[in-house]
């Protein structure tokens, strides 16, 4: 391990950020289901209740609509709030509060009312969770003016971006990936935060730029390693935040490689992959040797059968195959 660094899980990195920020500002409250004594369904609040108590860790019954609205109201009134939907899927119960109130109030009030809230939820497929528990519709929030959207792919980003999210004076969608919570990564030993809108080059390469977020960054990295054996040098770039989006960094990479592929756990239609696609052409049309390539989940609800779901969601094999094919074409 590099010195000044230590190993930690993706989920514990979030807990650390929360502990530091809740200790820093006692006007910060955390609302959700099972986030108190239980420490979170994913262990995402482990130890916080013991440290900050019932008052600041507010367990609720099953009422995402009410709990999310309560969180927004508390933020409007001057508290800093984290509201945890636990599974991102359950935010579907509370969309009216997220879109109509959290995203609009600062603008409609002419900047008079701030809504410093982090809306947290875990997205994506994990262990055949099935069609109700595997959504990856994070691009919806990017399509909604007024919401910032964070989709971290590793422990270091979870901690640094969570701290920035909590300190932000507006609503931030903090969307982790269920399947990453137990993954380990290195983070700095000293306190730090990561600004929004700065993409990370996860791996340098010269033949093709591969853009991915969240769990698909893992898939992209493995695919890049495999493609190297085929003599293809892949640059993997992770925007880390969709809003704000680091267009410059992505464009710079594409200009360098002349090609871009977008890897997404969500279906292609009207999503993130189309946005990066457009970005590539808007910024680098004359530098593109080929049209951008979209490698996305097939447009189906998530099937329960592992055999079927493995066919639906992009795998390392599929990424390797499609990128090789596109370069050989």
């Amino acid at each position: 391990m590099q010195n000044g660094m230590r190993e930690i899980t993706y989920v514990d990195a979030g807990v650390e950020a929360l502990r530091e920020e809740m200790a820093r500002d006692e006007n910060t409250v955390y609302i959700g289901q099972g986030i108190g004594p239980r420490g979170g369904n994913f262990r995402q609040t482990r130890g916080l209740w013991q440290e900050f108590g019932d008052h600041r860790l507010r367990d609720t019954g099953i009422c995402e609509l009410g709990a999310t609205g309560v969180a927004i109201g508390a933020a409007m009134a001057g508290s800093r709030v984290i509201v945890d939907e636990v599974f991102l899927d359950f935010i579907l119960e509370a969309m009216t509060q997220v879109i109509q109130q959290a995203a609009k109030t600062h603008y409609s009030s002419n900047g008079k009312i701030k809504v410093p809230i982090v809306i947290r939820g875990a997205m994506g497929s994990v262990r055949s969770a099935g069609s109700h528990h595997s959504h990856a519709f994070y691009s919806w929030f990017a399509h909604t003016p007024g919401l910032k959207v964070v989709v971290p792919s590793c422990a270091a980003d979870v901690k640094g971006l969570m701290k920035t999210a909590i300190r932000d004076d507006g609503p931030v969608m903090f969307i982790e990936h269920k399947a990453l919570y137990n993954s380990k990564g290195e983070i700095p030993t000293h306190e730090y935060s990561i600004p929004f809108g700065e993409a990370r080059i996860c791996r340098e390469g010269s033949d093709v730029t591969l853009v991915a977020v969240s769990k698909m960054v893992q898939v992209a990295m493995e695919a890049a390693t495999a493609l190297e054996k085929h003599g293809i040098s892949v640059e993997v770039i992770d925007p880390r935040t969709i809003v704000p989006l680091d267009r410059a960094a992505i464009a710079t990479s594409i200009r360098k490689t002349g090609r871009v592929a977008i890897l997404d756990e969500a279906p292609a239609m009207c999503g993130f992959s189309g946005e990066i696609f457009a970005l590539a052409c808007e910024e680098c049309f004359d530098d593109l040797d080929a049209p951008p390539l979209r490698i996305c989940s097939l447009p189906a609800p998530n099937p329960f059968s592992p055999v079927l779901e493995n066919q639906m969601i992009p795998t390392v094999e599929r990424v390797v195959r499609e990128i090789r094919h596109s370069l050989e074409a």
Partner: protein
Amino acid sequence: MMQAIGTVPDTAMLLDLYQCMLRLRDFEVKVQELYRSGKLPGFVHLYVGEEAVAAGVCAWLEPKDMVFSTHRGHGHALAKGVPGRDVMAELYGKVTGCSGGRGGSMHMYAPEYGFMGTNGIVGAGLPLATGAALSAQLRKSGQVSICFFGDGAVNSGSFHESVNLGTVWNLPVVYVCENNLFATEMAFSRATKNTSVASRAASYHLPGVEVDGNDVLAVYEAAGEAIARARNGGGPTLLECKTYRIVGHHEGDPGTDYRTREDLDSWKQRDPIKCFRQKMTSTERVSAEAFDDIVRETEEWLNDAVEFARNSPEPIAETVMDHVWAS
């Protein structure tokens, strides 16, 4: 402004209540005229006939207290102390409006007066007001949060989830239902089989109280108790004020296709402002002259607000992207 519970309001308070109701009434009648003559963009829902509710509740509020309102919220804003100029200018969509022209009738915000917003979404204020009360409890600020909502919101999940949370956490919030018997053209008795809102408090174990929403003194007393309870750590109250809008649902709705002339007329007989003045003068608690002075002041106050709004500038097109992001 606070008074001990039970005590009858003194003359000053009686005049305050009258002034408040009259301002709300005259303001809305003017808005109706301006809207019909095409001066105002958007859509407006007028508060005419329900003034006793906002007046009786807000009489107890301190500036730091917070009010969450509805689509029918001009009256709530004025009663909480937002200047008529700021409200009228917002209805004109002018840059001097309380939302700088970005909001309009259903998006008026004046936190500087403790007014936390009208709202275009039915029921949305319920969790928001509950959350503001949670923040007040955490900050030990002594603030009370008031949630105004209509009978139409009672059948929505927002009501159910919010009142339950407010009760579980014993929050300083008062849920004030303005039950005017209709949600647009939908009679409350068609929307549910239980037409008592106050009775629903039993489902959540918080106090439920029903009052005549056209009797400003009845509202004043019941609200006083509920607000004192909230402020003293006694938790939330569900306060049902039975009232009636003697105008259409929004400007453009005659409001007579789904309500009988008779009903409408009988409710006009129970006009909260007329009845209050009549009662006060006949019992000689307030003199007609004192009331007349208020009538005159109110007229000047309203003319000033309209003049201000009319003469204010439009927002500058190029500022459209301002305030999408905080800081």
